[in-house]
């Protein structure tokens, strides 16, 4: 008799299921191939060194976002997300820049105060999400706006130059020919990798993100891990402030916009690199490097900066859509 079995739709579904998670990778590789051909020096070592240097602030804030996503689950709407890490970094940078340049404070103290401010930002997010039960997306969007507002109060929304030797070293210094900022970022990433992927605490945090019920049933407190993930993201934002200052040689209003866009793009792009197709630290770091490579590449082939925004926006769409699609076909 006639049968609905093996309708053409089933074949399409299988194809989508197989390809969807890899779509962002395919698109990125295609763009790299294009940039490599269009720009004569894109694939040269000097360009790659520039890419790595440029990627440092993004890499660091991605570690924060990845931690929150791993603890809250990778559902963008109800799972874990922290949009406020770049804003936290920019606020901490504003405080440090103000203290160092306008009040002549010793850089070490200023950095400590900046990092502490980041932790306070993280505590605010943890409180909003865990205590008030707000959706992380909305809570951190709102707090992000507030943090930026405070940073503008601190700086009167004017650029502050920072010429402190430590910040200059972070930007221009190198150890055995490797840029100092890159080494610092690698060290921070290594610490995060160990803590999140190789310790009980990290594995338990991932369990909470993977299935809150399973974690609770194993005696783990989901609320505790989620709150801790936000505090860590705040800490990361505080640390990232130093690299933000280094890249911009000081504090400039509006830095957070591009940083946030790159952070979200890189972190969720990173899931495409993971064999388990989930957000991981290495994926996020690799994603951050790729995203800044694109920015540098677009600059070197002379694509208008406004078009760069459009292209990155479409990439975010592709990344998020492929995640949604693979979830849908797997359901």
């Amino acid at each position, binding site marked *: *008799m*006639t*049968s*609905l*079995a093996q309708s053409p739709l*089933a074949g399409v579904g299988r194809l989508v299921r197989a390809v969807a998670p890899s779509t962002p990778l395919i698109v990125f590789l295609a763009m790299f191939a294009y940039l490599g051909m269009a720009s004569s020096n894109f694939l040269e070592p000097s360009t790659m060194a520039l890419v790595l240097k440029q990627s440092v602030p993004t890499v660091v804030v991605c570690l924060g976002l990845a931690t929150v996503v791993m603890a809250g689950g990778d559902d963008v709407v109800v799972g874990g997300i922290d949009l406020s890490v770049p804003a936290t970094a920019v606020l901490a940078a504003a405080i440090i820049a103000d203290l160092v340049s306008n009040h002549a404070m010793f850089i070490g103290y200023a950095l400590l105060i900046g990092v502490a401010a980041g932790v306070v930002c993280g505590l605010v997010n943890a409180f909003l999400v865990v205590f008030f039960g707000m959706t992380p997306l909305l809570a951190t969007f709102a707090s992000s706006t507030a943090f930026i507002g405070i940073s503008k109060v601190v700086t009167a929304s004017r650029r502050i130059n920072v010429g402190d030797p430590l910040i200059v070293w972070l930007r221009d210094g190198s150890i055995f020919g490797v840029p100092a900022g890159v080494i610092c970022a690698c060290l921070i990433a290594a610490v995060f990798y*160990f803590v999140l*992927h*190789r*310790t*009980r605490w990290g*594995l*338990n945090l*991932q*369990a909470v993100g*993977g*299935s809150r*019920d*399973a*974690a609770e*049933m*194993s*005696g*783990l407190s989901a609320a505790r891990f989620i709150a801790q993930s936000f505090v860590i993201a705040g800490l990361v934002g505080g640390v990232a402030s130093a690299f933000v200052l280094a890249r911009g040689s000081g504090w400039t209003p509006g830095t957070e916009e591009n940083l946030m866009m790159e952070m979200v793009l890189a972190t969720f792009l990173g899931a495409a690199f993971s064999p*388990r*197709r*989930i957000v991981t630290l290495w994926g996020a770091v690799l994603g951050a490097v790729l995203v800044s490579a694109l920015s540098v590449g677009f600059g070197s082939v002379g694509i208008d900066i406004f078009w760069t925004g459009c292209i990155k926006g479409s990439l975010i769409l592709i990344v998020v859509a492929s995640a949604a699609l693979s979830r849908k076909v797997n359901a």
Partner: protein
Amino acid sequence: MTEPTGHILQMSGITKIFPGVVALDNANLAVREGHIHGLVGENGAGKSTIIKVLAGVYGRDAGEVVIDGAAMAAMTPAHVHAAGIRFIHQELHLVPHFTVAESVFMGQELQGWFGIKSRAMAEAAETFLKETLNAEIRGTTLIRDLGVAQRKLVQIARALIDNKARIVVFDEPTAPLASREIDQLFEAIARLKARGISMVYVSHYLGEITSICDQVTVFRNGRDVGVIEAIGPQDTGRMINMMVGRDISDLYPAKAHAPAAALLRVEALGDHKHFDNIDLEIRRGEIVGVAGLIGSGREELVDTIYGLRQPAAGRMLIDGKPVRLASPAAAVKQGIVLVPRDRRQDGLVLGMTVADNVNLASLEDVSRAYLINRPAAAKRADALAAKLDIRPRNVDTVARLLSGGNQQKVVLARWLATGSRLFILDEPTVGVDIGAKVEIYRLIERLAGDGAAVIVSSSDPNELIGLCDRIVVMLRGSIVANVDTATTSLDALIALTTGGELHEGAVA
């Protein structure tokens, strides 16, 4: 009370009162050391409540819990865990992208100076699964690459890995499993028993209870109505009698409708996952019941007929013409409507008025040039509210304020307004009181009397027998019986649904 010797768990005189409901009324449960103790009863009999009291999830209002001779004063989940009681919940609660080892050791991972000892954990998990549960599962496999039965074994391993379990409580462990997978699970349970672990086994499947349990406690209306020692297949009838008690026949209206020509035919329908090879015919003016436990494919079949799910095989015909329902919208166009099990979530817009809810699906009938004719809409809603006796009669009442039974009527009124001809009612009386139940039964009878075809999908065997002309019984994805309610007893229906064997003459 039962004699105390040899009992590892004794729950006596347990009472648990929720606002307005006595969930447990002086209930007892005693489990012998090293035995598998079955716990059976209909939905709402108090099985899950007493398990939750044991788990420390619910506090008890009265009664005593003695574990291994020691009375438990305060009971929190942590206390219960420390006393060596483990729960295998019906849901798997596993992280899909974790490895088997990570899942088994969740919350008690092995850690050294250089972080998590992945290899040691994988090896220990493999050994444990092999030796304790006779399962060959690699410790590094991801959970999402395992079948349901293997996941169940991982779940069991997680509960037992610390080797401190003394009593394991299984809650409907076989519901998601296929028959051959059940044998694997039973083998694992037999190994646990051989190790001296005591078990409580909660299930609707009486066939399973009689084959693996040593004793059974039967619950009804919040209390234990009997314990059967040395249970065997010969006890199925006795067990059902204890579960059901007396029947209540006045609830149901007289069957006055007369089935006419066939409306819907389903041929060899299947989704290769929840159900397969389903043949079904429903006539106009006929009420057909679908019986089946959770996991029998009953809900999925009903959803498929309504276009919520897509079949992988077979076809559906309406009035002899093949149709393909790609969505509920397509089904509604064919005159098929579903009154969903969770009305609050799927059936009603709670913030809208009764009138708006009634007219929601057929606004074009009371509109002109895309503008709603308010008086006409209100008038039609009012007429339907009167016909179905929706209370309060004011159609401007917000739906949220209505009782469960009246909300159900609003949903039905909406579909009457669209002139539908096949009504699918999924658990139509769950969560409504007895008075509303009677009204809903009358309403269903009336739908059939007006010439509509009705499918009632229900987990309440009383309701199916009292209301329907025919009942199709589903078990593990297949129709195992198609019975005429005039010649079917309640016991026979329950036996069919639960896969138990009813021995002739065993029923009193």
